[in-house]
């Protein structure tokens, strides 16, 4: 998509600037004006041509490249083996939670939140929450499996931005948007906040680690 746009838009940009430069250069050397009006036909043809051309480039880009990718991305149903993660943003950190072996996140309640002892407000009496794995600012996923993120926020709007994977989704309090994507390489990548959230917005940094399945399992075991 980006390449398509860079190419078509780049060409239009250069063409427009060359035309502008030519008109300015030529115009300042002319002694008398050319014809006052272009013919009606020229005007109509130019407008129609431009309209059609732009419609083709702009809407064509959306219809042929943009929307298919968009709907593939948002219509995607998480594959059965997708790794499920809940990311709860707060000023100025990312709380990470894995559901554990039972694949179910335990109950949380804002009334139980205490930033020091229980940042997510976990209900310790819920048996399904017993095996949940909690982390901070560090997301680790196995390579080769889809990632299914449930995004939440405790206070203000944040935005989950993985520049290396072109993933961006606002974390809005009161909502739980979901993001499903497939990391294409292993390594350690940075997670940034992309929606102004307060004083330390510029350093609300997390890490997104894509490791092999084996490393992931070892890592998860260590966390429990």
């Amino acid at each position: 998509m980006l390449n398509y746009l860079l190419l078509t838009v780049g060409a239009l940009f250069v063409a427009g600037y060359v035309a502008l430069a030519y008109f300015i250069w030529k115009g300042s050397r002319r002694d008398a004006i050319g014809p006052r009006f272009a013919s009606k036909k020229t005007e109509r043809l130019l407008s129609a041509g431009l309209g059609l051309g732009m419609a083709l480039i702009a809407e064509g880009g959306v219809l042929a490249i943009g929307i298919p990718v968009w709907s593939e991305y948002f219509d995607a149903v998480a594959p059965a083996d997708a790794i499920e993660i809940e990311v709860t943003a707060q000023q100025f950190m990312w709380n990470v939670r894995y559901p554990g072996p039972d694949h179910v996140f335990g109950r949380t309640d804002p009334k139980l939140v205490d930033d020091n002892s229980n940042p997510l407000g976990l209900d310790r009496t819920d048996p399904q929450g017993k095996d949940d794995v909690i982390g901070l600012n560090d997301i680790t996923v196995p390579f080769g499996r889809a990632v299914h993120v449930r995004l939440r926020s405790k206070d203000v709007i944040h935005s989950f931005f993985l520049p290396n994977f072109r993933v961006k989704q606002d974390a809005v309090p009161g909502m739980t948007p979901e993001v499903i994507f497939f990391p294409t390489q292993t390594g350690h990548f940075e997670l940034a906040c992309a929606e102004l959230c307060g004083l330390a917005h510029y350093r609300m940094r997390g890490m997104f680690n894509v490791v092999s399945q084996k490393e992931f399992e070892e890592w998860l075991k260590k966390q429990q």
Partner: protein
Amino acid sequence: MEPPAPPPPPERPAHEDTRGFVRRYIFSTDHKIIGIQYIITGLLMALVGATLATLIRLQLGWPDHAWPLLEKLLPGGYQGGVMLPEFYLAVVTMHGTIMVFFFISYVLVSGFGNYLVPLQVGATDMAFPFLNMLSYWIAFLSAAVLIFSFFVAGGAAAAGWTAYPPLSAIAAAVPGSQMGQSLWLLSMALFIASFTMSGLNIVATVLSVRAPGLSMMRLPLTVWSYFIASILGLLAFPPLTAAAVMLLFDRHLGTSFFLPSGLVVANKVLTNTGGSPLLWQHLFWFLGHPEVYVLILPALGIACDIIPAFTRKPVYGYRMSVYCLWAVGALSMIVWGHHMFVSGMSPFTGEYFSLVTLTITVPMTIFGVNMLASLWGAKLELRSPMLFVCGVIALFGSGGLGGLFLGNATADMQLHDTYFVVGHFHMMIGGVTLLATFAAIYFWFPKMFGRTMNETLGKAHFWLTFAPFFTIFFMQHFLGIQGAPRRYYAFTAYDYLQKTRGQNLVISLSAFLLVSSQFIFIVNFVWSLVRGRVAEANPWRATTLEWTVPSPPPHGNFETVPTVERWAYEYGVRAPGGDFATQDVPAAAVPVTA
């Protein structure tokens, strides 16, 4: 034989000005004085906005550097000479707010709109002169409230010019969300009230007090653009007034319009229930998107009216351009969601907003190419106003094309809230409008003040404005592609942003050049006001009605109401006065060609 009747006693001129100083220059109802008041207020606000931009660029060019002098000047904003993050956010917020609402809106839309529309439609004043005066003084109050907010506890608003709640709703979320944010909202509500009055006035003036013979399709494109922009403002602004009041309620009266259940801020559970942060975004952008067209349409209209005076031929495709303005105006009302592709709203609406957004490229391209084609076959004189208009065309081209990236939801996912957006909108509602404002000042200065601005200084001002401006914001597009998020106090916390260090340095240096070269303009403006060459009634040999009256025009504008016989672009003809005919030249004297 009767003796001849004695000659009638000399009558007072129809519009003799009998008002005292205060009614003439301060609480005036004369649209020309009000226009100039708006322009001066707006230019002073621009000085504040530009100072804030300098502080931003100092921080981003040299993060963590200590500036002891700045700490002396702004003790609240610096600690140990280093800028505080809360001050940085307040500065960013106020820079955006001031430049969009209090500079460009005041100078270009309200200022020149007031000054030009009645003159160009051949009217003695606006349709509602008193309302006009009221609108200026409310606008003045709104600017005063905004400036005052710098000095309250917690400092000025710091939630960005878009003021997304909950950040802007909860005092504990960021220092600027204390009193500063309330004053920001109050100022915004006042601004909209004032803008509604002046918009209503412009619409009424264009519809009801045009000179005889001036049919709508004979209006100059300037008047068309103000007319359509004012309609847009009237339709789009009130929702934000409502939203501002609702947010004030959330802040002070415990309502939950924008605050959902279960918020925990600063380790404290809030009792709000059931609100939606997205509601604010919808209401804000329902205003915000048409707002950018309210700003940019007059810039384009003015460009179209300045071009023919320096190409000596009619603009290209007048009718088509008018239709394009209408089309753009209509489309701008239904595309606001393209600011919210990743906000969590339904992805289906993302597809809709992508498609309608990119439809705007069709009329905008036709309009842009019409401006370009107006230069075709021209005998071009590159005087200062025309240079600025060439700059308008250039920035409109590059800024507009950047919109193709952002309007496309799929590409926007990567670029949203990065410097690509910052670069894009500075080119459009920053640059196109800024250069058009300067073009308009150089062009109509002789009419307003009866003196001409200095040409050499004007040309120097153009090059020292355009070159750094283009460098700054063209480069910011690439910062965005590299993933640099906007509203960051520094790019130091991330490894992947380390390589943007050098680019930010170049941008900062260009920004200082840009700001300092505005002193050329200030010197030229003040010097020309006092010492400039005395201007005749029509120094640019232009055709619209304001050039048929003396410079500056007397109170009441026209001795007698002019009769319009032709369209606004009768250039390149044989006429007694030269190669042009003003709109009131009788058809019998010079043939009407359109």
